[in-house]
């Protein structure tokens, strides 16, 4: 006869679930509010979302490092806390961008905000677990919400983007399931720490290498899709173009942070086991991604597509740090995204405020370069701010991304990958060209049309967000030190 299973409430350590539950509860509250009174304005929902995220932020901060909970599937270690904090901060910056002066209809639906909060809960589950099944559930929750958010933008190319992203996402979900299945078949477990234990004992068995190889390839393909690495990046520019500008900026940061955390857990395990070609493949993917995405960004005619390719290139840059598998390498991933978040969201927000319902400059694109020609004469401060963001993205010191860049390069040099640091340096030089192209259009050309403004969409909350991003970009030199020491402490505490 089976023994009855006793589970005590303390052993569940439910506090580890609190952050996600807060986000989900927030989503439900918004839906219920809509049920009671369906004439509420979007500003209410935006503020409610921010408030729920603030509570969420507090709950994450209150967690203890290195705890497990809920039948040991939740893992609260250093990287799960810092990545959750970054996800929440990124979301808090993103959501006020809904308060534009022009009306975009997706924000009038409370569902938008509910889905947004569900998506955040999904990302939080992804980063706060080392159970492949829970990671999968988190990933799919977040992705399905994100597809819908894109489609809500309600233009034909938004539908195209959503369907494209959905198809690619479904494919990568399939790869993830197959990869996990192979891992399970090899080790009899889906918990990564147990998988690592079993694999460590079995790694020398003849004939097993092919299966380990297979599992890592399948998982690598999944995360290459999610992180938009070459050659699995083809969806990214179209999806960014179809999504609204802030959502595109958001997609280039927050989902990638979540995916990077899972990638660190999975591929860090493979590299620690001594499966050296995982490292080689990651390096190869990283170098190809940053180089080819840079080359493709050179020939884009639309600023948003250029920024999409540039985000791909930045992701490749960071992917290289993943292959190093050192504490510094992992710190550099978070440092880079922490700094990139402000600048990139700022740059996409600048596109957002220049968005017009009609394509006034080009039949094909929303944000062609011509639109920004002579920007300095029309809107000097806007041009200066956009110029700052571009210089920061190009890695010109002392702006934020420069510090992330040298930290990544230093990590590469420290691990003996000097060639990698040189490739990164040369890529930064290539990238400088397309960022400069926009600066040249803004500062050195004359306006192509007689327009008085291209800020059709400006409002006070947007100005506040852009101001915050500008301050964070310019003043990076003053907060890099505390940021590095916090990240280093958290990451080394969890043993990465």
């Amino acid at each position, binding site marked *: 006869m089976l023994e009855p299973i006793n589970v005590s409430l303390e052993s569940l350590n439910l506090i580890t679930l609190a952050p996600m539950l807060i986000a989900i509860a927030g989503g439900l509250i918004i839906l219920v509010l809509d049920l009671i009174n369906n004439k509420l304005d979007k500003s209410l929902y935006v503020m409610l979302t921010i408030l729920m995220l603030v509570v969420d932020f507090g709950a994450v901060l209150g967690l203890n490092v290195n705890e497990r909970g809920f039948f040991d599937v939740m893992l609260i270690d250093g990287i799960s806390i810092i990545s959750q904090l970054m996800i929440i901060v990124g979301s808090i910056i993103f959501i006020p961008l809904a308060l534009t002066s022009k009306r975009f209809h997706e924000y009038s639906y409370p569902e938008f905000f509910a889905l947004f909060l569900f998506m955040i809960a999904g990302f939080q589950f992804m980063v706060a677990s080392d159970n492949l099944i829970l990671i999968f559930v988190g990933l799919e929750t977040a992705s399905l919400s994100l597809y819908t958010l894109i489609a809500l933008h309600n233009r034909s190319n938004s539908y195209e983007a959503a369907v494209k992203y959905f198809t690619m996402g479904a494919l990568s979900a399939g790869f993830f399931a197959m990869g996990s299945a192979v891992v399970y078949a090899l080790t009899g477990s889906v918990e990564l720490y147990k998988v690592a234990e079993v694999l460590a004992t079995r790694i020398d068995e003849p004939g097993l290498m092919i299966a380990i190889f297979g599992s890592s390839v399948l998982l690598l393909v999944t995360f290459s899709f999610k992180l938009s690495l070459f050659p699995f990046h083809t969806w990214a520019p179209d999806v960014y173009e179809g999504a609204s500008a802030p959502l595109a900026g958001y997609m280039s940061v927050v989902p990638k942070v979540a995916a990077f955390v899972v990638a660190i857990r999975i591929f860090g395990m493979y590299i620690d086991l001594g499966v050296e070609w995982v490292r080689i493949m990651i390096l190869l993917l990283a170098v190809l991604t940053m180089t080819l995405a840079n080359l493709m960004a050179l020939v884009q005619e639309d600023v948003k597509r250029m920024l999409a390719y540039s985000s791909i290139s930045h992701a490749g840059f960071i992917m290289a740090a993943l292959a190093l598998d050192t504490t510094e390498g992992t710190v550099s991933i978070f440092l880079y995204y922490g700094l990139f978040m402000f600048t990139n969201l700022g740059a996409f927000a600048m596109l957002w405020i220049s968005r017009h319902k009609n394509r006034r400059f080009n039949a094909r694109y929303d944000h062609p370069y011509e639109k920004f020609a002579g920007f300095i004469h029309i809107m000097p401060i806007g041009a200066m701010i956009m110029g700052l963001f571009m210089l920061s993205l190009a890695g010109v010191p*002392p702006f934020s991304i420069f510090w992330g860049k040298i930290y990544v390069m230093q990590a590469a040099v420290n691990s003996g990958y000097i060639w990698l640091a040189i490739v990164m340096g040369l890529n930064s030089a290539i990238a400088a060209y397309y960022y*400069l192209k926009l600066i*040249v259009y803004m500062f050195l050309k004359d306006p192509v049309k007689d327009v008085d403004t291209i800020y059709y969409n400006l409002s006070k909350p947007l100005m506040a967000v852009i101001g915050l991003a500008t301050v964070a970009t310019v003043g990076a030199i003053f907060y890099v030190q505390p940021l590095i020491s916090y990240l280093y402490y958290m990451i080394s505490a969890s043993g990465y």
Partner: protein
Amino acid sequence: MDNILSVLIFFPAIAGLLGFVVDKESARAYGITVAAIEFFLSLWLWFSFDATNAGMQYVEMIPLIPDFGVSYYLGVDGISLFIIVMAALMTLIGMMSMSITKNVKNMIITLLFLEMTMMGVFVALDAIIFYLFWELSLVPMLYIIGAWGGPLRVYASIKFFLYTFAGSLIMLVGMLFMAYVYHNLTGVWSFAITDWYALVLPVEYQLWLFAAFFFGFAIKVPMFPFHTWLPYAHGQAPTIGSVILAAVLLKMGTYGFVRFSLPMFPDASVMMITPIAILAIIMIIYTAMVAYAQKDIKQVIAYSSVSHMGIIMLGIFAMNAEGISGSVFQMLSHGIVSGALFMLVGVIYDRRHTKLMSEFGGLATVMPKYAVIFGIMLMASVGLPLTIGFVGEFLVLLGFYQISPIMTILAGTSIIIGAIYMLAVYKKTFFGPITNEANKTLKDLDRKETWSLIPLVLIVVWLGVYPKPILEPIDNSVKAMLVFMEEKAITQEAKDVIIVAKSTEGGI
């Protein structure tokens, strides 16, 4: 004022920010006043500078990112002191003589930010802070060339930016590797140049690091074969842009060699003497010949700039007190003379909107003052004794003679070829009858132009006759550096080449 270096950096930056508020009509006066105050601050630095102390003075150190070894670390010695004064002077004079009327306010603000970055490069003692100002200096220059330049300005400005940016990123990798080596040996992160000086590196490391830094500096100098961006930049830039570019920005490259490459990698530097000397001689002779073939006066001066930068490079790699002191002095003299020549070309361009020599001829009869000043500057550029150009060139050749007499003779031909192309310019432009009707009514130098050029003429003659007050502090610091390099060198060949004992006192 112990923190005068910070004041020198941030005064123009704050002035630039406040400049946004100043009214368009008054922007010019504002800029000149600010630049004058900055110049007086730099003079203050000079007069309170202890010329007998060869080490770093006015040192400031504030840790910025201690976990990563980055600190706000400034200092000045005899090598950088006069470049700072020269940069402040040329910014002031450039602004005074500026003839731009379009978007003057933007130009003034850009120049003030550029001045900040120039000050920063020459006083930074932390590699990352140095790199920061080094890269930041590209942005204002990009804007100056791109917004006020000639027809090909966008191409020229982007070429300028990308060339330098690519080179300096390789230098950045070198810096990061240097910090890594330092961390390995000491267990501490540091980007302080003075900490790096203390490292004795194996020769193989030195060679690789030397190569990495070489790319950054050589593109900036610009050394043959990386010089192709310069004629475009000069050709398209407005007068003020060319003045600052030639006078100060190019000096960043040669200054980098003196500040970084030599003391940090003495053995590699000695091993590299011959290859670099060959490149320098190619630079000197080839670009001088190219200069002779130009039709445009400004291009002649641009190529002559490259040629003179070759002399500076040669002096740096002479590895003795005469050569290096002469190089540093030549940096100052080239800054003043080429700056003045670009201003003079600007004067005639403002009147005729052409710089082609074939358009002119006989200008001496209608513009006597202009012809005299042009003549003096041209002689200084060629290196006529008793002008500023002679001192540096002579010391450099004297210094390099101890390395290789043959190469010195080859380099010495620069004086002859230089005289040929410069005098050819002078003959075609100023002598003979006035052939072009348009030139008959040209006005001579006006008050503004005269008063911005006269101080430069005075300096050219003063330092040509009596260079001691400048040479002495330079020489002190250079000798201290050479003593240090000799101690640090690990190969005997390097110790033999680095000659310390001789002095330049009484050299003139």
